[in-house]
């Protein structure tokens, strides 16, 4: 109430002069402050790209195109990133294959089946998965889950499929509790909440009239989902899946504990592997010179991959949201 604007009694009310009066300094200062905070996001992203690339330059310079070679041997100064890119991709794909059907299923359960009263508690439970910190998943994974699944599942599966055409190379051979597959399972738990909540948001935008139309034509619930919900939310769900992949690729500590830390490229999913973030976490402490530069460079590659995936995913989600609103 104290900031009644200084109205000039001489000028007629509502004149153009009063409106174009300069805004008070505090007001402009606040706007500048807000703008600066917003710009901070862009500044940080640019600084990340510049500063980490700078530190990684000696790796890029020393190895050239060989940064993508498959030989990783720090004692001989050979730093090829391929085993880690391979491990990141493989664990990410395993996580998606397990997590996506479950996440979309829960999203449909929440939007199409349970009444609103019940959907809140279900959402809380799913969110609890996201509250468990990465390092706790890792601790549980390496001390409880990996020994259990090795003893009760992996050994039986491995002896069962050895010699079979496709399954043999994938699941046969020697097994280990800490492996690509264990890391993929833990990642699946971790990305399920985000894929579920994003898919749910997209599916909730399907207009009620299309659902009712499908029902009026005599469709069963499943036929309604396939005919009315799916075409509408397809794009958004793909975006959600990509965001889940981005999350899985960048997940560090849980994977570092359960992937087995072995820089090998193999088709055997039940044997130890390595991924880009986990090699940074495990080996950065002892690294100097080109070795450190190579690990930072791995971070640069990871940053580039996740940024590209996120940009594509956000663009897909935004486009399908706009289409959902009928623009």
């Amino acid at each position, binding site marked *: 109430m104290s*900031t009644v604007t200084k109205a000039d009694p001489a000028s007629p009310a509502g004149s153009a002069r009063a409106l174009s009066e300069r805004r008070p300094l505090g*007001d402009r200062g606040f706007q500048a402050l807000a703008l600066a905070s*917003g710009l901070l996001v862009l500044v*940080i992203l640019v600084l990340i790209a510049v500063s980490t690339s700078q530190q990684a330059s000696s790796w890029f310079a020393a190895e050239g195109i060989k940064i993508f070679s498959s030989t990783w041997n720090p004692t001989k100064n050979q730093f090829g990133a391929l085993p880690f890119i391979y491990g990141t991709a493989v664990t990410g794909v395993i996580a998606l294959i397990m997590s996506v059907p479950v*996440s979309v299923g829960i999203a449909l*359960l929440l939007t199409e089946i349970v009444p609103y009263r019940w959907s809140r508690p279900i959402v809380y439970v*799913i969110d609890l998965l996201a509250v468990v910190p990465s*390092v706790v998943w890792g601790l549980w994974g390496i001390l409880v889950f990996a020994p259990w699944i090795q003893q009760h599942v992996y050994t039986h599966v491995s002896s069962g499929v050895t010699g079979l055409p496709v399954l043999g190379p994938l699941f046969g051979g020697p097994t280990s509790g800490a492996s690509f597959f264990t890391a993929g399972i833990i990642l699946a738990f971790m990305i399920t909440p985000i894929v579920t909540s994003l898919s749910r948001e997209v599916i909730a935008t399907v207009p009620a009239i299309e659902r009712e139309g499908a029902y009026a034509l005599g469709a069963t619930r499943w036929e309604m989902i396939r005919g009315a919900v799916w075409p509408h939310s397809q794009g958004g769900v793909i975006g959600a899946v990509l965001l889940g992949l981005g999350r899985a690729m960048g997940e560090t500590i849980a994977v570092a504990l359960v992937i087995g830390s072995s820089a090998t490229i193999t088709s055997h999913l039940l044997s130890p592997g390595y991924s880009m973030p986990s090699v940074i976490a495990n080996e950065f402490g002892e690294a100097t010179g080109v070795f450190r530069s190579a690990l930072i460079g791995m*971070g640069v590659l990871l940053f580039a991959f996740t940024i590209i995936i996120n940009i594509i995913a956000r663009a897909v989600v935004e486009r399908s949201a706009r289409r959902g609103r009928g623009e």
Partner: protein
Amino acid sequence: MAVSAGPDSVDLREPRSWRRTKSQLVTAAMVGAFVLVIIPLGFVLFTVISKGASIISWQFLTAAIPPNVLPASIGGMGPAVVGTLEITGFATLMAVPLGVLGAIYLNEYGGNRPLARLIGFFSDVMTGVPSIVMGLFIFTIWVLHFGYSGLAGSFALACLMLPIVIRSTYEMLRLVPDALREGSYALGASKARVTVTVVLPAAIGGIVSGALLAVARAAGETAPLLFTILTVTTVNRNLFSGPNTSLPSQIFANATQPYVGAQARGWGAALTLIAIAFILMIVARFITARFARFQR
């Protein structure tokens, strides 16, 4: 024989058919998907609580971390509790005001301008930047010049929290009805004053609970702290210089140790960390329920 359908009355129940069975099977699969998610969650929580509850105590939370030459001694997590509170607290002090201001720019000033849309888009993209990259980033621009410190860890966590706070605050500001803003303008208030005294108080519940969820996320992060604070076992109350430690870092360090005492310490720290995250989440839900004035 009132229930039997005579030749005149029509049976309104759907006929049994493959179409209907298929629909029911799919519904059952959806319920199954939810059950499939509860199992690992229950398994993790059960393990952490059953292994951590016997260890956790006031003494555990305050005692020193023993050196690892005493394999059976459990000791405590005092330095890590201090470190986590200091580092996460300072990160919150930086990220929340900046994030709220950024969201104010996006919603109150930016509108549909290309710059505002660019910032909004990239703040969403920034939520997807892996936390370990934030750690490497602070390592290259801060630690290489000024050395390891709790402050560097706070910077890394703040970078992680900033886009989350921007997003959650922005969603809340969007819910504030324009009529409130217009009413205040009509009284002659400047834009800054309208924002600070009318718009922010109207959205405060959602903003606070969003910030708390961001804190809960940051408190559990290990990767950004590995190369910014290092992991020591001694207490370091000075946030601004010298290596520090935190609960997640200690869990990570203890998870790979073969000693019974170290693993017990890990479980105790894990329960502490989960308890902190749960308390923050419950407080956030309570604040949302209590202060949410405008719902979608």
